[in-house]
């Protein structure tokens, strides 16, 4: 049954295209969140503007709970409240009697529990922006007045670096291609990446990886590597991974790859929450995707792109499943009928 008749097309869209899930290529502005844990020290206040490289917070790498007796001469005063900063050189939490700078957690039975640690990592801003809200132990909300390329997931830490295209949209990078010459870069590594490349990239000082998909095995390895690094005594370089699609391999979509190509050689920032590649150079011209370009996101033809031809009505697909479908013209002149939910368009 053809059901195009009577559909009122959305302004500027071909008929039926409004029923295809849309993917935002460029979002602006970006509201970001930087998670803090008890003991982490925010170094900014609400309303404050910050620029790239500004110190946002001191994060404890080895945070733990220590105790301070109320009877201690340096114990927090009666007005102290949970969340307050407190410092003492005569505490009793460490063998040398110094609990350093700490955050008050709670008081019970005449003793304060405080969140403290010896190893502090400075969290630097990967982008410029404005602090919206600061809540010790919870996080820092920021607004970034810039354009961003949203991903589906990000792991690791917020980072900044020079963007370099290391592999084509459907390609993959070998571990051997990773050397110290790529130190400080944010690498676009194609359709997928394996754990060895990620480990080597981190070791070589690469700041970030942008990849089409990340399998769960690699995701687990990245998270484990993060935990190992956090447990280390030496300071670690921040490292982030931005995933543009999901878990199963497929090429990076052309509209996204076009943006990444336009950014090659320029500094970009990477936020973890939300997972976004931040383009803070307002001068860079970014390509706009054709409104009729659709990409087959999943199913047997995943990764193929084409031009929207229109709705095809309800069609029967493999395994007797009936789905609303659309017709897509491919570059080789053939036409595919694809379930609408397997498609995505770009704006």
């Amino acid at each position, binding site marked *: 049954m053809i059901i195009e008749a009577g559909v009122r097309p959305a302004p500027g869209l071909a008929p039926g295209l*409004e029923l295809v899930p849309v993917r935002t290529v460029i979002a602006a502005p970006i509201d970001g969140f930087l*998670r803090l844990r008890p003991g982490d020290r925010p170094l900014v206040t609400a309303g404050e503007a910050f620029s790239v490289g500004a110190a946002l917070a001191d994060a404890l790498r080895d945070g733990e709970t220590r105790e301070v007796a109320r009877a201690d001469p340096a114990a927090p005063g009666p007005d102290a409240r949970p969340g307050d900063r407190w410092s003492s050189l005569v505490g009793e939490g460490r063998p040398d009697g110094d609990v350093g700078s700490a955050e008050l957690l709670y008081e019970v039975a005449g003793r304060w529990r405080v969140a403290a640690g010896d190893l502090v990592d400075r969290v630097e801003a990967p982008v410029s922006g404005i602090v919206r809200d600061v809540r010790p132990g919870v996080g820092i909300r920021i607004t970034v007045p810039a354009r961003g390329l949203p991903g*589906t997931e990000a792991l690791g830490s917020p980072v900044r670096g020079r963007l370099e295209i290391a592999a084509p949209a459907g390609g993959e990078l070998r571990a051997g291609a990773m050397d110290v010459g790529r130190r400080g870069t944010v690498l676009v590594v194609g359709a997928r990446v394996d754990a060895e490349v990620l480990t080597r990239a981190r070791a070589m000082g690469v700041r970030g990886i942008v990849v089409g998909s990340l399998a769960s095995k690699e995701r687990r390895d990245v998270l484990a590597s993060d935990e190992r690094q956090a447990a280390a005594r030496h300071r670690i370089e921040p490292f982030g991974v931005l995933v543009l699609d*999901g878990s199963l391999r497929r090429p990076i979509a052309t509209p996204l790859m076009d943006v990444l190509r336009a950014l090659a050689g320029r500094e970009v920032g990477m936020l973890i929450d939300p997972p976004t590649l931040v383009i803070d150079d307002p001068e860079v011209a970014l390509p706009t995707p054709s409104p009729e370009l659709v990409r087959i996101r*999943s199913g047997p033809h995943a990764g193929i792109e084409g031009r929207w031809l229109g709705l095809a009505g309800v069609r029967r697909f493999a*395994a007797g*499943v009936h*789905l609303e479908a659309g017709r897509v013209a491919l570059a080789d002149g053939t036409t595919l009928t694809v379930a609408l*939910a397997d498609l995505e368009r770009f704006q």
Partner: protein
Amino acid sequence: MKPVIRDPHPLFIVDRGSATTAAALVARVDDRRRLLASIAAPASIPVDAVLEHLVATLRSADPDLLSNLRFPADPITSGVRLEAVSRPPRTIAVLTATVRGHAALASVVARSGWNQVGATIEQDDPRSVAARLLDPAVSAVLAGADQRAGADERGGLADLSALIAAVATRRPDLPIVLAGAMANHESVIRGTSPDRVDVLPAPDARSGTPPGEHLREILVGVGRRDDDARWGLARSTELLASVLDRRVELLEVGMSGGLRAAASVPAAGRPYDLAAITSAGAALVPARIDEETIDRVATWSTEHVDRHRLRDRLHELRAHPWADAAGDGARLRMAALHAALAHLIELTPDLSARPSPDLIVVAGGAWAVAPAPIIALAVADVVRRPAAVQVAHDHARILGAIGTIADRAEAQALIADLVDDMLAPLGSVVIPGGLRTGLPAGSVVVSGSDRPARVELVPGGLAFVDLPPGIVATADFEFRGPVVLGASGRRFQVELAGGLGGLLVDLRDIPLRLPDRQDLRRELLAGWQDPLWQEPAWLGGGP
């Protein structure tokens, strides 16, 4: 709430799920309201675009009908809408003084619709517990102990209450439920936040029937909204039982959780008889895909797929629930659905102990695109009680929204008007109990269709009889030995309703026993399912 029955205009019923937006058009035709059209689309599609498409579909199919409706000039923006929403489950932090006390609380929370993260004073560093409570993803706190705190718990309760009191000053938005002996520490928590109204004392995890029921009810009530589709589904189950005068069970599986509701006509003097359990863990793909989730789905998978690949595919299914819905994707979805449903049944032994229902209604996005016979088989695979039941599908996804209508009489009248339209008959399932393996079980003769159909019954197998929708047939069962089918006996005459999946006589074990070896299990499951991944012959289907 809008008086939907008395409004003469057509009514859009919208169910905005976590993964799916479902829309239906209901209008008065002759003397009663009818369901004229329905559609479902990914939740990312704007509701107005979905409604436009719905109206266009109806216009294309029956332009005269549409022109006779009393539509406003612009029906999409000014038409009457009844809307329900399924929101992603929120997360509750479950805190106890001891590890021992945690399991009981966690099992209650598993039946309350919340996602949960846990911590104990005994085992966890207070800084990490505080970090968990301060995590913006956590929306509520449950701290509990036995009603009479055990000796091992008493020491930790003061610490726990002081920690919660401290967090309460920094998270004034956080509802706090204090269960069992923790309720005695309410003044400590209120001492730092005297204005708080959302500190709720509650009984412990053993109070009520079944154990923990009183606490569960409190947890369900925390933050529930009137337009909640899952709550509406539970209420509609009870209304459906009243309208049909039958025992009704509803099994809902969606992207944000699952619901099992059972209702029957109440005994005299009681306003209703409804039991309903929601679970975030019974989502088609839970938010956290852990090893247990992988095991559950692998148990029901008919495909050979390694664990890493299965995890990746479940991640994709979670991220894009509508994508890859055909072919292998449909089989994966069905394995995940089985796993979710089995988990839901495991969590609700109290509902399984009720008398077997006459009608099982399946609802929720997880069932949306599966062929009817496969749905009937999935129900039979997991809900295994000796009984004859009719299975139907809330295909237009309107039960949830109707259940949110505040006026009971209004909601009931709407269900009474629409019941024939809104429940797609999937067929009937007959599961006799007590069959002896290895011997022919007997036979069944089904009369009512064109000509009587006789089917020999083989224990351990499935027998299918074409019984199209709209047909009411009589099935005469003759078993060689005594079996249980409602009552115990050898001969039974059962009246059965047809459906898209026909009649399924299920002669497999109760409970279903599957081989431990994965390859044998896959082969067995595929053997049962493969013939059903196609339309029935009477509908012109083929492989």
